[in-house]
């Protein structure tokens, strides 16, 4: 716990999280305003849900940038040196701390999107309003998608240790890999991070996957990458 608290302090004493919070909120607000107002009347539940959801790309980048900054500024080694713990444990704490801060960013982003979007969408008639259960389900999906995206980005950052490489890898994992997989097996796309995100953020309609199944698939990707990153850190030099 000491390590996670220390890593959270690290994240909160630089401006990276603040800038990403501002940018992420701005993008979410822009998305909901553009989709709700510029798309005409949204009179179906699916359309309204899509307007409120959004691809948490910035949160993926936040995870990558936050973790790679440790290597870019060579601040990873001092924590290992003073704590007396192995680099893998410190890396795991760093990923955990990034998820904690990422959860805050995801809640903030989703909160801003819903606070602005729900009243706008309520004025779109005819068509049913989103029920409280639907709103809670979508909000949970968005927060979960955002938080797990932070972990995916952080794990890629830990694995690659290079900011640009990690961001590019994030884009490849989310957007390029599904297209390649689709060429082999279309249904397999649903199990990719992108496919799972689409379900969680209501970016796709009529998916055969349930919200819990998609959450599980994305969590498996994120945790798998994180475990890989921690194991890699244990076997690499820090100097």
């Amino acid at each position, binding site marked *: 716990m*000491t390590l996670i608290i220390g890593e959270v302090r*690290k994240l909160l*004493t630089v*401006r990276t999280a603040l800038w990403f919070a501002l940018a992420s909120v701005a993008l979410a607000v822009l998305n909901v305003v553009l989709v709700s107002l510029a798309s005409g009347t949204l009179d179906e539940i699916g359309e309204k849900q899509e307007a409120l959801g959004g691809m948490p790309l910035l949160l993926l980048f936040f995870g990558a940038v936050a973790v790679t900054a440790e290597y870019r500024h060579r601040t990873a*080694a001092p924590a290992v*040196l*003073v704590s007396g713990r192995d680099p893998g444990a410190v890396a795991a704490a760093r990923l955990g701390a990034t998820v904690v801060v990422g959860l805050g960013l995801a809640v903030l982003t989703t909160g801003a999107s819903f606070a602005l979007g729900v009243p706008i969408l309520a004025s779109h008639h005819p068509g049913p309003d989103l029920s409280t259960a639907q709103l809670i389900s979508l909000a949970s999906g968005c927060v979960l998608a955002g938080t797990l995206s932070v972990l995916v980005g952080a794990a890629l950052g830990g694995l690659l240790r290079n900011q640009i490489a990690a961001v590019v890898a994030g884009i490849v994992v989310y957007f390029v890999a599904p297209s390649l997989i689709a060429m082999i097996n279309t249904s397999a796309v649903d199990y990719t991070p992108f496919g799972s995100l689409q379900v969680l953020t209501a970016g796709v309609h009529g998916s055969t996957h349930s919200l819990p199944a998609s959450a599980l698939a994305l969590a498996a990707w994120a945790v798998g990458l994180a475990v890989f990153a921690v194991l890699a850190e244990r076997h690499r030099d820090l*100097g």
Partner: protein
Amino acid sequence: MTAHLPAPSAVLTAERLTKRYGRLTAVDDVSFDVRPGVVTGFLGPNGAGKTTMLAMLAGLVRPTSGRVLLGGTPLQKRPPEARTLGMAIDSCGAHPGRSARQHLRILAGFARLPRTRVEEVLALSGLAEVAGRRVGTFSLGMRQRLGLAAALLGDPEVLLLDEPANGLDPEGIRWLRTLLRERAERGRAVLVSSHLLSEAAHTVDDIVVVRQGRVVHAGAIADLTPSSGVWVRPDEPGRLAEAVVRAGGRITPDVTSGRYLIDGLDGPTVAEVARRAQVDLYELTPQSTSLEDVFLELTGARS
């Protein structure tokens, strides 16, 4: 190569350490001890493998072979922490967007040290007045002080410093020397790397000189005595050479200057040997060598 037996009093021991990066051997079968109460200089030219060596001693870099003993225990069994080992690396290892105080408080948190210790090391390193400033605005000298402050947080048994004098002004260098001497007097061990012997000579008791990843000299700095020699320009070099060898000296020609360097005999003896051999000397000059010359010769900077 014989096995290195750590000295009984050694607090930190490098035992046959080797580090290879692909085909490049950065550190090659290096063994030495760091003793408590002593400042040990780790000297060598740039690229000699000093930083890699220090990182291995701190457990940040895994040796390809060999091991490090901290207090007689392998590093794998006793990972260093703030109270056992402090290391100043990469200038300071702090994020440029964080203040010096924030950086030290975070590290103190990792080490479960009280916040009061942060203020102590800030005062000790002369950074108390700028502790609230972002590290990104610090000069190189201030970052060096911050790195030292971080290394001193746990008042460690062993202090490893990588080129700590870089960027320090004369007052800062004096402060650093005093700090290192005080730590040694308190029974702590200090290993300080440098590429300048002249800088380290004022502070260190023991030295380890490395060249291309290998130790070329290890021992007390007092043992690193400058060699003596005499330059001569004789009219009969052959006859003088025979006489010098008979007298127990050694003579080496210097093709470029046309002079000869005689080792093992002092100036008056060389003059006497030449007189007896009926050789006229047009020049007799004692060779001027300093500690720095010896160091340059050891590290291969002077061929």
